[in-house]
Structure formats: structure tokens, C-alpha cells
């Protein structure tokens, strides 16, 4: 590398992004473009950073494989932090393979970590777990190691496994301490709070209380019959009946469970399951059909008994029955749950993460915005959504050094 590039890279390495910019601001050769891109990312201008890194990657060309791959990885990281999930995964995987082939294990592992974080963000837990199982985190420097452990914790939390989550968070805390990046330490600390925060609401015999993740885990491990409205399944021990694609059955099961062991009169069931205000004969017929289906679905777990006024849920073997619901239930709760991570999201990214159409997400966002629950900045394709109290982009960028001599 030449003298000014080395000087700029050295300035970047000690966090002096402005100093780095000063040295290469007027140069348009590929290493200068790459350094300017990284510097702009550190200064928070992610849009400009992405454009610079893209042109650097193109200018390096396929023969300067390492430098090019590192630019692509940096670009992917910026896309992830700005919640631009339309990032082409193939380019990142190609860059990761190129780095691995050339023996750059640190940045190859960093690229893998980004892939895992993206999968986690869009809720593809199985795929994320598979990649995690194959990743050897040992070459990662402390900062990237902290990011990796956060991903491990993220999977464990979503799988409701408290101990592995706690252990990963402890390792993340230790790695963030070693990395000595204040913003990263704060991020790990915030992530660790999740274990103490309410993870769900328990509705048990007409009373409600909030549960932490550990309590949820204990409940799911017991043989209590749980109508789980967080995942829309009915479960007892290892027996799980998924009802996510059958909302009417789930609504009936939940209504019956909230009243158990008492029965529920038909008009209430009709109102909850079909939103029918005035029940007629056809509604009653439909209710009979749906109750029949629910009976079939829950045959291994409980009986649905007809009573003189309606129906009652009777768990087998005299088991207890409870409802597990999200801590806050309101319309568009899933949207708010994603935005609660404190990042700014594009509506496209939210649509991808929730497997909903862009129009549905857009309508929901507009409603939430009107209610003052979310806010946006930017216009057109650059528009981003976030929860009101958040300022800026708190997620730490751990960008790779862009140049092969680095």
C-alpha cells in the first residue's frame, strides 16, 4: 500500500475517521474509495458509505479478490445495520468463500456472522442455527466475537433456552470488555436485560401476571397444557399442536382455556372466533364444525366437552391449563416487536421479516404512525421507521479493514 493509504488506514484503526477522510478525500483509486467508504460508515453516513464501498468493490475487480471481498462484507454489514434486508445474499456468500480460500479466516468468520445475524433478524432460526453450528468463532477478534455471542444468545432466547442464552451473554460481555468499544458494551448490556424483562403474560384461572424468559422455559417444560398465543400453538410437554395457520381453532382454544375449568357460552365463542355479533343458525352450524375440528386437533391433549350452554376444555389426566400471551397485546404487535429492537427499518425489510405484503405493512405503519407509536425519517425508498425514543443507529459497525495489506 502507498503512504497516504497507510496513513489513512492507520487513522481509521484508531477511530480517527475524519483524519482518514482528510488524507484520501480527493483520491478516487480503489483503496482510497474503500477507505473513504469505511470512514463515512464510521461517521454515520451509511448511504454515502455504501455507494463508496460499492464503487471500490467494482474498481478492485475480480483479480484483487481479497480487497474486493472485504468491501462487499463491509457493504453487507452496513446494509444489515440499516435494516436493508434486500441485500443480495449471494454476493456476501461469494465474498465469504473468497476470503476463506485466501486464508483470511477473521473476515470470513465475520462475513458468516453477518449471514447469521441477518437470518436471526428475519426469524429464520433453523438456518441461523445451522450456520452457527458450522462456524468456528476462535479467529474472531473481541469485537466481532461479541457480535457472534449476541447471535448465539439471540437464537437461544428465541428458542426459550435460558441457560445457553445466559452463557452466551456472559461471553459477549467479556468479549465487549476486551474490545473496549463503549457502544458495543452498551449494546451487550441492553441485550442481557432481555432475560430479566417480561417475556410473556400468563393467564391462569382468570388472573394475569408477567413471566420472565426463565419462567416461560419452566412452564413449557412442565406438563401444564399451555395455549401459547406467542407462537399460536397448543402444547403440553413435548406434544405440540401448531395452530398458526388455523386462527379460528386457536381463538376457540384460547377462549375455552381462559375460562377453564368452567364452560363458555356459544355466543361468546362465536364473538371471539368469528367476530359475529348476532349469531344465527348458520353461525351455530359453523361453530359445531369448528369445535369438531378442534376436538380432532387436540385429541391427544384435551377433550372439548359440550355443555348445556356451550363448550368446556377438559385437559387429559386432570392437567392444569393456562394461556401464555405476548406481554402487550394490541393490533400490529408483531410490527412493534420488530421495531422494539431500536433500529430503523424500511417497510420492505419489515415485510420480509414478517412474511407480509408491503401494502399490509404500509397500512399498519400508517395506522401506528397516526397513533404516535412509530415515526419515520427519509422519503421514498430511503424512508425508515423506528420507535419514537431512539436516536441514530446504536448498532456498532465492526467493519473489516478494506485492504489486503491490512
Amino acid at each position, binding site marked *: 500500500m502507498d503512504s497516504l493509504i497507510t496513513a489513512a488506514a492507520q487513522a481509521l484503526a484508531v477511530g480517527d475517521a475524519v483524519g482518514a477522510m482528510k488524507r484520501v478525500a480527493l483520491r478516487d483509486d480503489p483503496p482510497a474509495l474503500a477507505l473513504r467508504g469505511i470512514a463515512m460508515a464510521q461517521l454515520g453516513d451509511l448511504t454515502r458509505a455504501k455507494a463508496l464501498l460499492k464503487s471500490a468493490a467494482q474498481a478492485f475487480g475480480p483479480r484483487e*479478490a481479497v480487497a474486493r471481498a472485504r468491501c462487499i462484507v463491509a457493504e453487507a454489514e452496513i446494509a444489515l445495520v440499516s435494516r436493508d434486508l434486500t441485500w443480495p445474499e449471494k454476493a456476501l456468500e461469494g465474498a465469504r468463500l473468497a476470503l476463506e480460500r485466501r486464508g483470511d479466516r477473521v473476515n470470513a468468520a465475520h462475513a458468516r456472522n453477518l449471514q447469521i445475524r441477518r437470518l436471526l433478524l428475519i426469524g429464520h432460526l433453523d438456518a441461523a442455527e445451522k450456520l452457527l453450528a458450522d462456524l468456528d468463532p476462535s479467529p474472531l477478534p473481541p469485537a466481532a466475537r461479541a457480535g457472534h455471542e449476541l447471535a448465539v444468545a439471540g437464537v437461544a432466547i428465541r428458542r426459550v433456552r435460558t441457560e445457553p442464552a445466559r452463557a452466551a451473554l456472559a461471553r459477549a460481555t467479556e468479549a465487549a470488555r476486551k474490545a473496549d468499544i463503549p457502544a458495543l458494551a452498551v449494546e451487550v448490556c441492553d441485550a442481557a436485560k432481555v432475560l430479566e424483562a417480561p417475556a410473556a403474560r400468563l393467564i391462569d384461572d382468570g388472573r394475569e401476571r408477567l413471566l420472565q424468559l426463565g419462567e416461560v422455559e419452566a412452564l413449557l417444560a412442565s406438563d401444564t397444557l399451555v395455549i401459547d398465543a406467542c407462537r399460536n400453538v397448543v402444547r403440553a410437554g413435548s406434544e405440540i399442536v401448531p395452530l398458526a395457520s388455523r386462527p379460528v381453532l386457536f381463538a376457540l382454544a384460547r377462549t375455552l382455556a381462559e375460562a377453564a375449568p368452567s364452560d363458555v357460552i356459544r355466543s361468546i365463542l362465536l364473538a371471539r372466533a368469528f367476530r359475529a355479533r348476532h349469531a344465527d343458525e348458520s353461525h351455530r352450524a359453523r361453530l359445531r364444525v369448528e369445535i369438531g375440528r378442534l376436538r380432532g386437533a387436540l385429541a391427544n391433549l384435551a377433550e372439548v366437552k359440550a355443555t348445556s350452554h356451550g363448550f368446556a376444555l377438559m385437559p387429559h389426566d386432570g392437567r392444569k391449563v393456562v394461556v401464555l400471551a405476548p406481554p402487550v397485546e394490541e393490533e400490529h404487535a408483531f410490527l412493534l416487536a420488530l421495531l422494539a429492537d431500536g433500529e430503523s427499518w424500511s417497510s420492505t425489510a419489515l415485510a420480509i421479516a414478517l412474511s407480509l405484503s408491503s401494502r399490509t405493512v404500509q397500512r399498519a405503519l400508517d395506522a401506528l404512525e397516526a397513533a404516535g407509536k412509530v415515526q419515520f425519517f427519509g422519503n421514498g425508498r430511503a424512508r425508515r421507521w423506528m420507535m419514537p425514543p431512539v436516536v441514530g443507529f446504536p448498532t456498532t459497525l465492526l467493519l473489516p479493514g478494506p485492504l489486503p495489506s491490512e
Partner: protein
Amino acid sequence: MKTSQAEIVREYGPFEGTRNIGGVTYDGRRVWFAAGENLRALDPETGAEFTTIDVAAHAGTAFDGRYIFQIAEDKIRKIDPETGTVVATIPAPGKGADSGMAWCEGSLWVGQYRENCIHQIDPETGEILRTIESKRHVTGVTWVDGELWHATWQDDKSDIRRIDPKTGDVLERLDMPEGTGVSGLEADGADLFYAGGGGSGKVRAIRRPR
């Protein structure tokens, strides 16, 4: 053209507090290397470090028998290695796009990395006297026994090559092992080259073919 594999005889470092090695030079006793924030010297026999001079050192390093010349940003500084004092400063010919540097016969020879060339300059004024074209990105430059050698690092590959100083034609080439780059180059006057190893943080001794 003769080509062969570079034979790495010995490796020094990585050195505490230094991520990246730039230029390398040899004063007959000590191997000096540009370590970014400073210029460091090691004993090639024992590998022990002698001293550090606090002067920015981002690229090429050269020794004229009395003074060390060091490129940082877009300048070349002339430094007294015994006191660490900067005695003169001249502009670098590539305005900061410079990489390797060597001393020979009253001139400084400065590589310009991506422009694939080596400038012969006046060490008093920095004036460019002539320019030799190379075929590859130039990193280190050194003269030994009347031969001009320079290192290349391009497309993730590195080699050390002897070129005809008049035509720029490649006469001999030593290919570095895959994944091993040369950022700075100096001949010890006998059997060895000393080579900066860029981001590996290492200095390497490489057998010079005779």
C-alpha cells in the same frame, strides 16, 4: 527470465503495538522498519529490538550510509538515526501515492504503488530525475551490486524481481508463497533481502540468489 520460489530464511515479529509493516532498510547492523507511528530497529542476529524513533513511517525507508530517509503521508523526511532528529524534509514524488524507497549513487529511488513505476529523485530537492516503468504495483525498492530489485504486490500475489533499470524489463523473479506479501525491501549487501510483511506484522529475511 529466471523465476524461482522465494526462500524465506527467517521471520521476525509480529511486534507488540505494530499492526502493519511498511518500508525496511539496513544500516549494516540494524534492520529498520516503518511501523506506522514510528520507525523501529531490530538486530537481525538475535531478533531483539534496539530502539524506536517517534516519527510517522507509512511507507518506504532508505539509508544513505549516514541518514535514514522515511516516507510518511506525502513527504520524505531525512532522519539522523543516532539522535532521532529530522534534519530535512522534501516532497514525495507521488504526492502520497508512494510506496518503496532505496538509496543508490546519490539518488533516492521511490516506488509509486498503483502507478507501477519507480522515480529517481534528487534527495536534496525531491526533483524527479527520471522514471522507470514496471509491469506491476511497486512496493519495496532496493539496489544491490548494481542490480535494481523491487517487490510487487498486486491481485493478492507478491514477488521480488530484478529489472533492467534502463528498460524496465524483468530479468529475474522470486515468487512469494501464497498469502505472503512484501511491503518493503532491502538487501543486506550479502546473501539476504529483508522484506516488510504488511498486515502480517512480520519482517522476513529472504535468500538472495547469486
